[in-house]
């Protein structure tokens, strides 16, 4: 398996964690620290999948998802990864167009399963 995955989170520690997991799975990782950067990197790198935090500065993960859906990569799989875990939060995420919603804290196993599910097709 190979390809580029975009990850976005304002917490460096979590970006680092994602980077380790995804690199081990064999993906290239491009990392953004806020929503605007995520949108820019998506346009630049054309990733095969995005893992986005919801609460980020400038643009939140929901807005980034909406923009990705409206742009050239409208059908790119998006996983939202958030510490907002109420059912209403999950609903908002899926409504914004995300393919999956992963609650923090997450395990490497959960992340791998979601990605493989979404990329299997």
């Amino acid at each position: 398996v190979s390809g580029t995955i975009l990850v976005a989170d304002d917490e460096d520690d979590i970006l680092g964690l994602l980077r380790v997991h995804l690199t081990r799975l064999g993906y290239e990782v491009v990392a953004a620290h806020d929503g605007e950067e995520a949108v820019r990197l998506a346009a630049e790198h054309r990733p095969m999948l995005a893992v986005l935090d919801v609460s980020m500065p400038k643009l939140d993960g929901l807005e980034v998802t909406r923009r990705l859906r409206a742009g050239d990569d409208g059908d790119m799989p998006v996983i939202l990864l958030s510490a907002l875990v109420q059912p209403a939060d999950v609903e908002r995420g899926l409504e914004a167009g995300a393919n999956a919603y992963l609650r923090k804290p997450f395990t490497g196993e959960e992340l791998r399963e979601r990605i493989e599910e979404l990329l299997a097709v």
Partner: protein
Amino acid sequence: MLRTVVRRKPRLVDVYLLVGAVAIGVYFAAPADSVVQTVYYSVVGVYGIAGLVLGAQRNLARGARFPWYLFAVGLIGFVVGDTIFDAYLIGNGTLPFPSAADWIYLAAYPVLFAAIALLVARYGRRRIHIALIDAGIVTFGFVLAQWVFVLAPTAQATGSLLDRSILVAYPAMDILIVAPLAGLIYSRAARSTSFVLLALAILTMLVADEVYYGHGVNYRWLDGFWLASYALWGAAALHPSVAALGADAEAPRPRLGTSRLLLLGLAGAAAPIVLAVQTGRGANAHPYAVAGFGIAITVLVLGRMALLLRAYDAARREAESSRAVLLEQNEQLRELDRLKDEFVGLVSHDLRTPLTSITGYVELLESEETGPLTDEQRSFLSIVARNADRLLRLVNDLLFVARLQTGRLDLALDEVDLAEVAEHAVAGAGPRAGAKGLDLQFAASGDTAVFGESGRLGQLLDNLVSNAVKFTPHGGSVSVSVKAENGAVVLEVADSGIGIPESERARLFERFFRASTAVSRQIPGTGLGLHIAQAIVDAHGGRITVSSVVGEGTTFRVELPPATVGAEVHA
């Protein structure tokens, strides 16, 4: 069995009334119109006066005695009148008219009037408007009847002007008594026994008077009424409740009871009744009097209505303003609730973010892809992981409880095999049970499918099983069973743990409640687990119960509707 019989000591007033009744009986037993009987009549009168004076002195403060002394003065007038009357009869058998007795009798009535009026002024001051109007209606009705049936015929009878004046004066005096009596009936003093005795005394006297005037005949039984009136008057003063007349500071709203309505209705109907009676017997209908009193009564009824409406309006305004206050408080509460939710959400989010890094990096280390771990390192890391997990569980529980408070639990329903969920929970608790040397058993039988949300049911099972493991000492046992029983799916989690005292079982499912047996052993916990468990069971239409013996163990029993029934309930 020992039993104490409490005998009520007979009160003075009871004895007094009993003696009075016997005295009246003795009066009728005496030879009619004998000297003995005639003198005895006055003796009963003195008995009434004695009751009044004694009662006022025993029961009332110095300042409150005056009206009752006035009653005594009025009754003395009557007794003196009686005595003069009797003296004539005994002396020469003829009675001059008018005699000194008539003057004294007539002078006694205003004294009684003053006494009743004083009582009304003292005890009826509050709500006096409505009381006065009601008294006015009753009085006008009485006056009209008195005028047409008694006064007018008497005034037109033959005799000298003085004779006729005196004959008219008696019924007029009764009017004088009725007016303040009606006022007293409608004052707040009306509810004490003493008042009832007083009103009965006055009414008994009035009834006898009216029959006497109306028919001009002194029936023998009328004497019984007048004598009873004396005794009742004394008893009213002797009854202990005389001190409580109007003692309550706050007057209740006047109630429109049945008796009150009847009396008012009767008085209000006085005009048509008088008209009908007089027309029926072909007598003078006194149209001007009927019309005049009819109008007066109507005006009072209108005034009564206006007062009621005003009271009603005031009550409604009060209700509206308290409603507005309630609405505002409600709004504030809702705002507080919203702030609390926001706060809990924020705390949850901000605790989860660092927890994500902790558990994530521990997981990376434990995978040993960064290098092999020593046994000690691995054991330390598992301690970090376990505590991070505990912290996460706490955050989850708090968030869940906050959500429970704001609304019902929405479930994503599906057919779930409860046995499978239970088995999973038992497997999850295996390492902890093993570490404590517990014998952990699981058994399932029958169709154990329920209709519910597997995530929530898992949470329920985790809570119950981990509680059982937590509260069972080393070497004990925990057994989990799921079975179909009597049309329900029954889960039982039984342990041989520390137990829960009977007195605390009712509060066990309350938020943040912790059993004393858990607290005293310093077993950690938040008191949220069972609260959450009950909420989940409730949301699934089930029932959770507990049985326990301190020191021997606890069994939680959950009954859920089977999948077939559950599907219908939730459809």
